[in-house]
Every structure is written in structure tokens, then in C-alpha cells.
């Protein structure tokens, strides 16, 4: 009987381990008032410079066929609405997991026949920010079934895996200690709903993978290269974990 109860308690503990933080709070809620107002003011928000640049790139023909994003997709305000809330997702052709950056690259390769943009380049960040900003206010809603499942499980395992000289996993800060202070910073729940963000420390816009690299370097772990499968899996797990949070791109963080 006691063993049975114990088993139930352990099972319950395991299931809560994979749950969303309660209550769900976007990273902006942990930011100071001035950072919050910077994000909310669509003109002062420096991330909007990338969005503006993305809007220009959207209409700029690229590649041998002279096609722009807008040639096929038309007005991004309509065609891209809600798209970012569904990524990362399985690409139906390659059956591999891709994020929004990957989707844009794929269009460049397969439809525009244009050279790929470097990961984390201003151009790719600008287009990603422009596309993602069309989904502002729409809740994150990713699939985790079917082909997604294996990626999701790997992402979850990575989230709970202690790494680096500091021997810390994502969960040690972003589940166990959110809202507490780490130096002058308030630890957030670690959601990806505002990416690409303008980070004041970077003095530039950056992707969620750049943020992962900052965290990995912070715990003194080896960083994966940009675009690594490990990051994509983790992006999927985080999107599911922040399921329901509204997209805020371009976010501003310290």
C-alpha cells in the first residue's frame, strides 16, 4: 500500500516535471519598466529597425528567377499572420524539424534559387522578425505529435540535462528559480515567444539560438553551432512549454 502510494507520488512528480510553469509569464513581465516601455513603443523599439528592413527584403527579388517573398506570398500582413506561432514544425518534404529561419532559408533554396543567408545575419534576422511580427498577439501553438514526437522528447531531455562546469540544466533556473535574482537580472521562465529579440546587451537583434548560446556559455558548457539539431529540438520543447503565450516579436530584453 505504502509502496503503491509512493509510486503514485513519484509518477505525479514526474508528470509535473514536464509541465508548463504556472502561471505562464512572458519574459517581458520580468523586465524593468523602461525595457517594457521600450518594447511596447513601436517606434522606440529598436527591434523594429529589423522588422522594417525585413519588410523591404520581403519585396526585394532574389535568385535566378527574380522572385521576391512577396511574389508568391503577397501581402505578409495577411499571408504570414499566425505562421510564427506554429514553428518549429516538421517540414512535409524533408520530414525534418525546421524553425522559422529554416523555413525562410528553404524558400530561398527551393523557390527563389537564391544563395542561403548566413544564420544570425542581419538579413535573416530581419526577415524572420518581419514574418514573426505578423503573428503578434497570436498564442504559440505547436504540434508535438507524429514526427514531432522524437524531436520533442529530445528537446525535453536536453532541457533537463545538466551541462557545463556549472552543472546546470535549463530547468534549474527557469523552473526552479524564475522571478528570483541572478545578479542584477530577474530570472525569467525562459520562453521563446518574443524572438527574434533586440537585446540591449548585444546592442543588436538576435535569434533564440543566440540566446541559447548565451545561456550555454553562462553555465560554461560547449556551445553547439548555429542551426544545430539540438537547438531545434529545444526550440520545439520550449514552444510547447510556452504554449498559449502571445507572440511579441520583436521583443526587447536587457
Amino acid at each position: 500500500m505504502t509502496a503503491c502510494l509512493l509510486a503514485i507520488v513519484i509518477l505525479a512528480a514526474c508528470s509535473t516535471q514536464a509541465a508548463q510553469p504556472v502561471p505562464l509569464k512572458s519574459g517581458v513581465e520580468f523586465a524593468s519598466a523602461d525595457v517594457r516601455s521600450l518594447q511596447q513603443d513601436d517606434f522606440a523599439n529598436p527591434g523594429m529597425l529589423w522588422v522594417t528592413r525585413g519588410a523591404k527584403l520581403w519585396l526585394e527579388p532574389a535568385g535566378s528567377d527574380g522572385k521576391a517573398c512577396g511574389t508568391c506570398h503577397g501581402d505578409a500582413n495577411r499571408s504570414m499572420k499566425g505562421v510564427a506561432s506554429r514553428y518549429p514544425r516538421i517540414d512535409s518534404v524533408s520530414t525534418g524539424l525546421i524553425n522559422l529561419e529554416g523555413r525562410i532559408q528553404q524558400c530561398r533554396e527551393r523557390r527563389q534559387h537564391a544563395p542561403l543567408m548566413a544564420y544570425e545575419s542581419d538579413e535573416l534576422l530581419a526577415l524572420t522578425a518581419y514574418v514573426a511580427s505578423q503573428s503578434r498577439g497570436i498564442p504559440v501553438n505547436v504540434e508535438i505529435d507524429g514526427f514531432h514526437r522524437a524531436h520533442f522528447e529530445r528537446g525535453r531531455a536536453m532541457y533537463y540535462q545538466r551541462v557545463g562546469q556549472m552543472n546546470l540544466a535549463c530547468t534549474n533556473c527557469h523552473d526552479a528559480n524564475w522571478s528570483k535574482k541572478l545578479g542584477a537580472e530577474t530570472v525569467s521562465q525562459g520562453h521563446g515567444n518574443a524572438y527574434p529579440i533586440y537585446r540591449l546587451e548585444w546592442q543588436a537583434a538576435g535569434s533564440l539560438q543566440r540566446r541559447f548560446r548565451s545561456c550555454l556559455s553562462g553555465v560554461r558548457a560547449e556551445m553547439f553551432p548555429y542551426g544545430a539539431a539540438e537547438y531545434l529540438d529545444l526550440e520545439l520543447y520550449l514552444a510547447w512549454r510556452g504554449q498559449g503565450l502571445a507572440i511579441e516579436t520583436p521583443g526587447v530584453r536587457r
Partner: protein
Amino acid sequence: MSLARIQVPPSAKRGEVIEVRIAIQHAMEAGFRYDNNGRTIPKNVINTLVARYNGTEVFRAELGSGISANPYLQFFMTAEASGDIEFSWVDDAGERGSERAAIVVVG
């Protein structure tokens, strides 16, 4: 590629004081950083920014290495006639940029 955003009110009354805002995408390299090979990254900031309202200079700023990347400035001016406000700027590398916005004055 030089990129800037300008914000002015959609329309203003003659004699009304309006707020003009500009944000420019620029790294504003302060000259105190080193690259991966240990070489100093040379200072390169937007050193001068001028705003002209229908050809007349209404605002001028001299920026230095203490200004953050992607500088954002705002100022107030009196709307007198419909026309253009044109910003032009130059950085230490000699690269010039400009951007304009239309001001509509009614009454």
C-alpha cells in the same frame, strides 16, 4: 545599407508644436572593443546628424562614442507649412545616409 525610421504626426495645425522621432540602424562602434584576433575595432559612429525642414536646418546633433548602437533621437519643432523633413547623417567611415518624411499642415 543605411536604414532609418522617422515618425511625424500624420497631420498638424499651422503653428502646432510637433514631435519628430528618428531611429537609425548603426553599430556605433565605440573604438574600445577588440575582434577575435585581438585587433582594435576602429571607432565608427555617426558623428553628425542634421534635420532640414523644407530646406531650413531645424535640428543638428553631434554624436560621440557614448551613444548606444541604433541611436534614437526625438525633438520638437513648430509646423509651419506642408513639406518634407529630411534627415542626413554621416559616420566616421564617411558613409552617408538620408531619409525623409512628409509633413502635412492643415489650416
